[in-house]
C-alpha cells in the first residue's frame, strides 16, 4: 500500500495549481446525500415516536432523554426454570440466552409485543425463546442449564442510591409461563 506522493515527488513540489471544484455530477451527488441526511433527520425528530421506534438509519436520539423523577422502577424480565431444579430460576439476560437478538433489543421487542395485548403472540415469542435456547444448548453452543420452562415476570424495585445493587426485586408478578412440550 502506498501513501500520497512518493519521496521523489515530495522533494520536487509541483508548481501550485488552482484547485478545480469537482464535476457537476459529483456536486449534485453530495447535495443529494446532504439533503437526504438533513431531511431524514428533521423528519425523524419531528415524528419522534414515543414508543421508541426510530426511522432507522435516521434517529431522534432520544436515548436517556426523559426525566426520571422516582427511584422506583418496574421491568419485565424472562427467567428460565431449570429442568433439574424446578424451584430455582435463572434470568435470561446474556448474549447466549437470547441469541441472535441482543439483550437490549430482545426486551425492547418483547415490550412491543406485550403492548399489542395479544396473548397468543406473547406466548409464541416466549416459546420461540425457549426453543432457540434449548436448540443451541443441545448443539453445544452454550453451556447454560437445561430448561423445562420460561417465565415472564414484572419486577418492581425501590432503588437506593446508597445501597449495593441487588438481584432480588422488592416484588414480582408472574405474567406468563411457557413450558417445553
Amino acid at each position: 500500500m502506498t501513501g500520497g506522493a512518493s519521496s521523489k515527488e515530495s522533494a520536487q513540489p509541483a508548481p501550485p495549481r488552482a484547485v478545480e471544484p469537482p464535476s457537476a455530477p459529483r456536486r449534485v451527488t453530495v447535495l443529494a446525500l446532504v439533503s437526504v441526511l438533513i431531511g431524514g433527520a428533521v423528519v425523524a425528530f419531528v415524528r419522534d415516536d414515543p414508543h421508541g421506534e426510530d426511522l432507522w438509519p435516521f434517529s431522534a436520539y432520544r436515548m436517556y432523554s426523559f426525566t426520571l423523577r422516582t427511584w422506583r422502577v418496574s421491568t419485565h424480565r424472562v427467567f428460565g426454570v431449570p429442568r433439574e431444579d424446578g424451584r430455582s430460576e435463572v434470568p435470561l439476560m446474556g448474549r447466549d440466552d437470547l441469541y441472535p437478538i441482543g439483550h437490549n433489543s430482545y426486551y425492547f421487542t418483547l415490550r412491543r409485543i406485550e403492548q399489542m395485548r395479544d396473548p397468543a403472540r406473547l406466548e409464541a415469542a416466549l416459546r420461540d425463546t425457549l426453543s432457540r435456547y434449548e436448540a443451541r444448548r443441545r448443539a453445544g453452543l452454550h453451556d447454560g442449564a437445561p430448561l423445562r420452562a420460561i417465565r415472564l415476570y414484572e419486577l418492581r424495585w425501590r432503588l437506593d442510591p446508597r445501597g449495593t445493587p441487588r438481584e432480588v426485586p422488592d416484588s414480582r408478578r408472574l405474567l406468563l409461563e411457557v413450558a417445553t412440550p
Partner: protein
Amino acid sequence: MSRGGFGARLRDAWNGFWFAPASAENLGWCRLLFFTGIFFFFGARDFRGFADVDGVFWNPVWAFRLLGFDQPSRLFLTIVQSVWRIAVVASCVGLFTRAATLLAFLTGTYLLGLLYSFGGSGSSTGIVVFVLASLALSRCGDAVSIDRWLRRRRGIAAATSASRGEYGWPVRFTWVVMAIAFFAAGLSKLRHSGLSWVSSDTLAILLVRVNHPLVRQANAPMFDWGLRLARHPWICRGFAAGSLAIELTFPLALFSRRLRPWIVAAALAMQIGIILVMGPNFGPFMLAYVFWIPWDRVMERLRGARAKNAAAAVSREIPVTSGAT
C-alpha cells in the same frame, strides 16, 4: 446586497465547506481505519441466526417495509453475509475499492437494518450507514490502497492536485452526520425534559439503574463508579449540564477550527465516560471519530521523525568509522 451576490456567496461558502482541497492520503487512512473498525465490530458477527427466529419478533424497518422485504432465509443471509465480509476487507485494504465500498454499503445497510428489524433500540449503527454511503460515492481508494499500488505499477499517474476537491467532502459529511447526532440528542433532552434533565436526579437514578443487573437496558458498565457518583447529586447535575452543553454545541466544531479539537475531544471523553459507567455500546458510532484526525499530517510527522532518526543514526556512526580508519 444584490440577490445574485448573496447567491454567489452562498454557493462559494457551500463549495468552500464541502470541496476544500484535501489530500487523497487523509481520506485513504480514514477509509482504512474505519473499515478496520467495522471488521472488528461486525466481521465475526453471524447474522444467519435471524433466519430461525419466530416471525413474531420481526418488525421490519420502514425501508424494508417499503421495499417489501420479508424475513430472510438462512441461504440468503449466508450469501449476503459472505459478500459483506469480503467487501469490508477489500474496502479496508483498498482493492477494487469502488466496487467493494459500494457492496459494503448495500450489504452493510441490509444487515444493520436486519439487526434493527428485530428490536431496534440503539442509534449507534445509523451513522455507519451514512459513512458507508459517502465512502461508496467517493474516491477513497485513490491513496493508501492496493488499487493505488497497482496503478503505479502499471505506470498510471496519481490523481492530480486539481482533483483534491474530491477528497474532503466524505470527511466533512461524516462530521455533519456526527454533529446532527449530537445536536439531536441534546435537543431531544430539552424537548422531552427541558432543563429538569439537568436539575433533577435523572442522571443519578440512571447511574444506579445501570448497576442493577436485572434493571439495566444495555450492557453492564465496566466499572461501578456510577454508584459512587450517584451519592453526590450536584456532581451528577454538573455532568448532566456538561453533557447537554457538549451535545448542543457540537455543530460549532464544523465551522470553528479553534474550537474543533476541544469540542470533539470533549464529546469523545463524554462517550468513553458513558461506556465506562453506564455500559451502552457506542463502538460503531465512535469509529466516526477517525474522520476528525488529519492523518496525512500525522503520517508526514511520523515520516519526518523517522527520517530525522535515520539521519541522526548515520551521523552517530560517522565519527566511529572515521576514528577507526
